[in-house]
């Protein structure tokens, strides 16, 4: 018997949602890959979108912006080690839809319908965490460097200037609000671009507490019924090229030189490191 499960993948623009789906699809289909969830069958569905994503991922090209390609719903039929089959449906929603929820305080019903899953993958780009910074400290640093006071034009408040952790907390609060609430949910927090964030020499839990303390406090206090875990995820292993910009990087070539594309992936849970990108999904649907 196949169990059908929805998993919502959420995150702000540039958090790596589409890259995650591309790497996941490649991984479950790569011959010999050792993963908690494995590919079961193609009996149902259309895999054109996933195949397109995986092709770009394998060749080391960055993904097309989801905003341009539009929202897609993809489904994978996977089985666990005991042979239990699960069809997991992932909507590939542009990050701008989540920004819109924060900035415009609204969500269209099409997007809302994709947010009813009991399992949520939340991607946060670990290399692009925008922290609050204060004028007084900035002035002190400038003065210490002997720089004159800035005479920039004053920037009026707008919601998009909010720190990353504030926007993410609000997104999670919205998922638990009367408008979108479906009861207790599981939440896999994936700190993406881990290859860049790991220079901090922190575990994913440590990075969450150090760089996103408001989010960590919100989750740890458990006011809203999230059952959550955090992983570090490097779904590319390094920098990818933008074909439209005719980019070429030696670092991307080094990734291509690896014996198997899945060797680019790094999934970190506590001190445990693997290439199993299905582990968070397996935890979500278990």
């Amino acid at each position, binding site marked *: 018997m196949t169990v059908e499960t929805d998993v919502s993948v959420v995150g702000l623009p540039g958090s790596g949602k589409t890259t995650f789906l591309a790497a996941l699809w490649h991984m479950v289909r790569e011959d010999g890959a050792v993963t908690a969830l494995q590919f079961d069958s193609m009996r149902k569905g259309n895999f054109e979108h996933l195949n397109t994503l995986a092709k770009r991922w394998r060749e080391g090209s960055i993904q097309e912006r989801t905003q341009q390609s539009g929202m897609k719903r993809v489904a994978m039929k996977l089985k666990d080690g005991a042979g239990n089959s699960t069809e997991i449906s992932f909507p590939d929603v542009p990050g701008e839809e989540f920004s819109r929820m924060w900035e415009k305080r*609204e969500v269209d019903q099409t997007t809302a319908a994709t947010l009813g899953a009991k399992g949520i993958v939340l991607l946060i780009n670990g290399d692009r965490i925008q922290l609050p910074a204060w*004028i007084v400290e900035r002035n002190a640093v400038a003065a210490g460097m002997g720089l004159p006071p800035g005479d920039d034009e004053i920037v009026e*408040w707008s919601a998009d200037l909010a720190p990353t952790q504030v926007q993410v907390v609000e997104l999670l609060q919205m998922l638990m609000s009367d408008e979108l609430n479906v009861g207790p949910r599981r939440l896999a927090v994936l700190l993406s671009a881990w290859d860049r964030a790991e220079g901090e020499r922190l575990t994913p839990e440590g990075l969450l507490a150090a760089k996103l*303390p408001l989010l960590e406090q919100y989750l740890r206090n458990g006011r809203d019924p999230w059952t959550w875990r955090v992983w570090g995820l490097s779904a590319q292993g390094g920098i990818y090229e933008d074909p439209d910009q005719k980019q070429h990087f030696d670092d991307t070539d080094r990734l291509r030189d690896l014996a198997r594309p899945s060797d680019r992936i790094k999934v970190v849970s506590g001190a445990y490191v693997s290439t199993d990108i299905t582990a968070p999904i397996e935890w979500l649907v278990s």
Partner: protein
Amino acid sequence: MATSASTCSNPDCKVATDGKCVETYPLEECPHYGRPAVADIEPVDEQPEDSRPAVNIEPPVIALSLGEALGRAEASALQRRRASRAIGVVGPHFAGKTSLMASVYEILQEGVVAGYSFAGSSTLIGFEMICHDARAASKRPEPHTERTTVGADATFFHLDLGIGEPATIASLFIGDRSGEDYLTTADELSNAAGFFELKRADVVTILVNGEHLADAKRRHEVKASTPQLIDALVEAGSISARQRVALVLTKKDAVAASAHAERVVADFDEMVAGVVRRHGNLVTDVVPFVVAASPRIANAVKRGEGVSDLVAYWMQPVAAETPPPTQVLQMTRMIDRVVIDTEDDA
């Protein structure tokens, strides 16, 4: 269909073949000449409905909460969800009221405050708005605070705070009303009738502008007006028996940097003693604090200094949750706090 000068809208006219108007007009005067005959007009196909160009219809939208400071009814609804503390904050403009509220939120952005950690908020947009002008993203040369609109109803900033493991969560509601509105109570007691946020407050927090108290010209006005305002609020019933009172000397950085730091603290101690003498037998307790919510000079004092102590006081259990506390007047001398803390930081 193109028309030409050789056509006529009169079907009986043969001008196209014989060049003469059937109505004998000179051609240039004929009202029908040059117009197409009805029979020559091509019929316009009626466009079937389903072939019309598709209209891009946006899917219906679900409105989400605005996230701004709450109105009275919204705050009341949230207060019913869990144990809560309501805080009234009274102070003249520029006393640092908005900076104090912003400071609590900004400290939580970096970690816990007085052992309390962030569990949620319905007013994240509101907090972000009041924090903006002290943040580098505003590109302002120095921190700035927008004044609360005079005459507007009070609103509430909301934080759910957790303490312990597993966390015990309580809601904190901080009332926000223009300082000028509060000051009018000293002129006319009836002006306090609408201060619902004070009547429902567990802790009434009175701000004393430390920068003004350090200023020779403003010093005596601060010393006179603050006790008079408290007297008026007590007489108007806005401060009553079950409440606790926090007297907060703000802008510790300005006090520490002034040439009159000791005098400021002595003045503040005197004001606190006066409030205790006049109202100590009415309110549950009166406790003094010194804070630097948003110092203007880095390193002079720590940003948010003293705010943790105040939050801990705000979050103390209310009478309904535990037996009423014995009245404790923490009359430690403020001079020690200002001077010693400053020396430590240096």
